[in-house]
């Protein structure tokens, strides 16, 4: 009961912040709401007993990605003031389409599919299992991730660097 109440509150908080992200004129405030909604998602992960992913969410989404976004906003002048409309011409159609998509998805989730659910506890050593899976069964994605990071760094540096004159 308590758990469900907490979940509803957190979910409402997350969704409200996400709405503000897409609706607010000021990009910086938008980014702050994005951070708040990342935090809400982290709490949802805790409710799913995925504590490690929750902390990774805070570490990477709030600590790294949000910082990158804020820096990028600061780097381009006059974007926060919003002299023009933040939305493009197709916003109305996009809104309509999104609402329809949302209703369809919720309908499917609520009525159409019976998901097979098992009642099991998360093992206490879930993190250790994750660690051995990363260098055992899932070693290919693990190493590919490092290559991806290297490639991303090189690519981003190539693009963003100011060329010397």
């Amino acid at each position: 009961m308590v758990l469900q109440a907490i979940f509803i509150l957190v979910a409402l908080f997350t969704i409200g912040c996400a709405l503000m992200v897409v609706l607010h004129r000021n990009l910086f405030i938008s980014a702050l709401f994005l951070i708040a909604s990342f935090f809400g998602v982290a709490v949802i992960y805790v409710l799913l007993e995925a504590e490690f992913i929750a902390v990774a969410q805070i570490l990477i989404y709030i600590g790294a990605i949000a910082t990158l976004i804020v820096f990028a906003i600061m780097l381009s002048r006059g974007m926060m003031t919003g002299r023009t409309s933040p939305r493009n011409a197709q916003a109305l159609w996009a809104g309509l389409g999104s609402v329809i998509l949302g209703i369809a998805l919720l309908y499917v989730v609520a009525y159409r599919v019976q998901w097979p659910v098992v009642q099991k506890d998360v093992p206490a050593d879930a993190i250790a299992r994750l660690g051995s899976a990363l260098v055992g069964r899932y070693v290919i994605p693990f190493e590919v991730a490092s290559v991806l990071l290297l490639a991303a760094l090189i690519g981003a540096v190539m693009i963003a660097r100011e060329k010397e004159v």
Partner: protein
Amino acid sequence: MLNSYAVVGLYLLIALAFPFVTLLIVSLMRPSKPNPLKNSTYECGMETIGDTWVQFRAQYYLFALVFVIFDIEVVFLYPWAVAYGKLGLFALVEMVIFIGMLALALVYAWRKGILEWQ
């Protein structure tokens, strides 16, 4: 496990509310007589020239970029460190390859002069 996070959650709510409630209480105790001079932006007595939210150099972004790469490495490193005691030598080899890639990224950034603050 959720029980211990319930304690953290309760603590979180109170720790979050505490500074703001204090600010609210204190705001009733203190004087508040604003005037335009007092409320102007502090700039060693000078008037601010131009908009504050001006464009910043890409330098900051490049540092953040290198940081992001290493921050993600942390997420892979820690579960590995936790599980390491039960793993064989292959775990070390794989981590050496992983960290080697990141070291390559660091060397690249170093060679390109990203790490120099101008």
